[in-house]
């Protein structure tokens, strides 16, 4: 046995106390849905994890009316400080249960435990902490005095960062005073349902957050529900288009965070070893299931060969396998459908004439796996350089001058993210200024912070999540709202306990 064959170091699933079946979380209770229940499975072993309810039209209606009731009578009447206290409480509970959430996330989604443990879950807590702080400071959000929430927010999130996307959606919505009906992806509902338990633990008033599970149809029913005021969606550009069409002409506000084909530009003076790390982190983080992935490497011709050699030898050290093993770098592809898509697009790349190289990984017999793959000799017209693959596949293009790098980076219908690698500060600023991407990272990639807005240009969507800008997606500027400020039930004491009691009383009175 060689030293590098690290002995297995799996995180134990014993920490999880899962139920065999999960209902829909509506109005503070788990109830069974009326659609056909489905299984959520582990993509690394194909073992079933739990049976999940499916919400049909009737359930969606119940969920939206619960959210409406709760909005009218509880949540919008609490003052910001009290809303903030609930959010702080959620954030702390997430920290307390972080290990459990990380295990559930890796099991259900297939991502390596080191990522769910060190990236996803800490960011989830950070997001709630951050927006908890905003809840009583909305007057300073830049929308004038006393900005108002929209009402009921319908939120549909993807499977790549299940709990993190939930946090990105729910935290600002609640801070701003909206109530929420959220639908997690059908392949990764588990952590959203654990989050529902956390809401119970936090003594959240019923109906403020409702979580309904189901597939695309449930999502369609939710965003099309007439009593929804705001729709927020993260996912594919195709579905985003459909939602935009459905919502147009209604009063509903819409934010979309869609696909991407991020350019990672490496200049010849880049800190090369760190650039290699950044490229790996940019496209192989989370098996490349990242909308802002740096899937196009645009490298200066003079260092192309050296960089690719370094990249290949680095990729050879990546460990593919059991997502719950603490030493795993590359986990499982989330679903057979996604695996098929990655395979199809990669084959197309080969047919079009790009050179394919895959790391020599041993693939487990069961589950859905794809090795880290690089395409070289890629030109801008190849499909691997244009289509979002959403998998561990990197396309390498070259450039000769900064102008060419910028032109190639911008030559995509998407505009979500980009990276610049150079030792020259002035070049970072000059190039970043020219890139049409919502996020530009300099000498790093895939770094997130709740205080930093995130979102896209062009077909990557509109609206921003995170930071002050993220609040604007859930607030309307200070025009007179449905009630006057004096009518709000402002608790006389700052005690959260009292505030909660008051909120409950309000509920009962209604």
């Amino acid at each position: 046995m060689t030293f590098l064959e690290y002995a297995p170091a799996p995180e134990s699933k014993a920490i999880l106390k899962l139920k065999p079946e999960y209902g829909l979380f509506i109005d503070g209770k788990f109830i069974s849905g009326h659609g056909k229940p489905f299984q959520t499975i582990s993509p690394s072993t194909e073992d079933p994890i739990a049976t999940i309810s499916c919400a049909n039209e009737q359930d969606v209606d119940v969920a939206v009316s619960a959210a409406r009731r709760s909005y009218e009578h509880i949540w919008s009447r609490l003052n910001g400080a009290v809303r903030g206290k609930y959010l702080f409480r959620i954030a702390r509970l997430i920290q307390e249960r972080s290990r459990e959430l990380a295990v559930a996330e890796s099991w259900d989604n297939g991502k390596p435990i080191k990522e769910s443990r060190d990236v996803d879950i800490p960011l989830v807590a950070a997001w709630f902490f951050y927006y908890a702080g905003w809840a009583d400071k909305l007057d300073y959000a830049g929308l004038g005095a006393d900005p108002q929430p929209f009402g009921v927010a319908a939120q549909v999130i993807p499977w790549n960062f299940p709990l993190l996307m939930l946090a990105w959606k729910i935290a600002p919505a609640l801070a701003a005073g909206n109530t929420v009906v959220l639908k997690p992806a059908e392949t990764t509902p588990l952590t959203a349902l654990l989050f529902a338990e956390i809401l119970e633990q936090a003594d959240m008033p019923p109906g403020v957050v409702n979580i309904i599970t189901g597939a695309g149809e449930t999502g369609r029913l939710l965003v099309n529900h007439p009593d929804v005021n705001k729709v927020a969606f993260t996912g594919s550009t195709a579905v985003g288009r459909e939602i935009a069409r459905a919502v147009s002409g209604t009063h509903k506000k819409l934010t979309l965070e869609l696909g991407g084909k991020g350019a990672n530009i490496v200049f010849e003076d880049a800190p090369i070893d760190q650039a290699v790390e950044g490229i790996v982190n940019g496209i192989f983080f989370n098996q490349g299931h990242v909308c802002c992935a740096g899937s196009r490497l645009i490298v200066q011709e003079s260092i192309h060969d050296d960089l690719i050699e370094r990249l290949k030898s680095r990729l050879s050290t990546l460990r593919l396998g059991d997502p719950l093993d603490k030493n795993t770098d590359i986990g499982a592809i989330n679903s057979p459908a996604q695996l098929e898509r990655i395979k199809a697009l990669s084959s197309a790349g080969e047919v079009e004439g790009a050179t394919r190289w895959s790391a020599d990984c041993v693939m487990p017999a069961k589950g859905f796996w794809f090795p880290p793959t690089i395409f070289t000799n890629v030109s801008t017209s190849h499909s691997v350089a244009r289509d979002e693959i959403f998998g561990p596949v990197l396309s390498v293009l070259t450039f000769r001058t900064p102008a060419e790098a910028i032109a190639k980076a911008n030559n995509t219908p998407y505009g979500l993210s980009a990276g610049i690698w150079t030792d020259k500060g002035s070049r970072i600023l000059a190039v970043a200024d020219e890139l049409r991407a919502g996020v530009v990272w300099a000498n790093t990639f895939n770094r997130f912070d709740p205080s930093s807005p995130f979102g896209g240009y062009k077909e990557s969507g509109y609206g921003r999540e995170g930071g002050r800008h993220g609040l604007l997606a859930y607030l309307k500027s200070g025009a007179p709202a449905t009630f006057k400020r004096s009518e709000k039930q402002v608790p006389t004491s700052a005690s959260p306990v009292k505030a909660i009691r008051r909120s409950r009383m309000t509920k009962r009175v209604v």
Partner: protein
Amino acid sequence: MSSREINIVTPKQDAAIAPRFNLILGDNPSTANLRRYLSGIPKVDAVGLEQRAAALSTRSIKSTSKLKSLDKIIELIDLTTLEGADTPGKIRSLAAKAIRPDPSDPSTPHVAAVCVYGDMVPYAVDSLRYFNKMRDGNSIKIAAVATAFPSGRASLNAKIVDTTEAVAAGADEIDMVIDRGAFLSGHFDQVFDQIASIKAACRRPDSTYACLKVILETGELNTYDNVREASWLAILAGADFIKTSTGKVSPAATLPMTLLMLEAVRDWYQLTGERIGVKPAGGIRNSKEAIRYLVTVAETVGEEWLQPHLFRFGASSLLNDVLLQRQKMKTGHYSGSNYVTID
């Protein structure tokens, strides 16, 4: 001062290192040439480097891998005493510990080397003579710090005498310090010439060379860019090992600094096919930390570097922690500091 003739050699004259710099610099290691070459080496992004080191630190080494790592660490230790108060008795005690680190378990491997001041070399030779005679080829090496360790503030002649005397007394390895003042003031040629001269002084009468470890003292060079340049400079000038620190300056070895130096030797290997050793020294006090270094070596330059002629830990208190961990792995319970020997 010794009456021996002091022979300051320029690298050109020395066959042992000529190929290295000729390959890269032609026959003129002037400051201008060196600076031009070193400034062409890709720069280091501090945030990215530290992130990578932190990521390598999260590897989880369990059960069989852990036991294997603990033995490996022992095999890679330069057991060190570098005190003003060192005596022949102290050296004998250190040597005994080097031979048999854990008297309660004869399966414990011996360490790679003992590292002492130059004047203590004869006592170390004496203490290890019998053991080393019995183990042909797999001996415990004797490393001597030289060149006005730890500051390096002495004339070149004094440094050369320091070195030749240690080699003559039987040191297998010389741990020299670079002139950090010269490096920081930009006199790369001076640093280069000193290393080359010490390399020449490592030559034994039978034309073999003592292994030369070049201490960069990363805590004084301060920036990652400086350390990367100094690593290349030392390699070009003839280093067999590049070593982080004397252990007398804080911070001593850190994982990012060591990772950076490993990247330099990896790149040198890619360029020339020649393997240079790396020795982090100072500040590595427990097994957990040492295992992170093993992981970093294996995942940066490859597992073949985890051999005494290519990787060492300069440490003193590390050994006892490794022994405690090892006893725990074997017996299933923790013992305590009284169950390992002080040296």
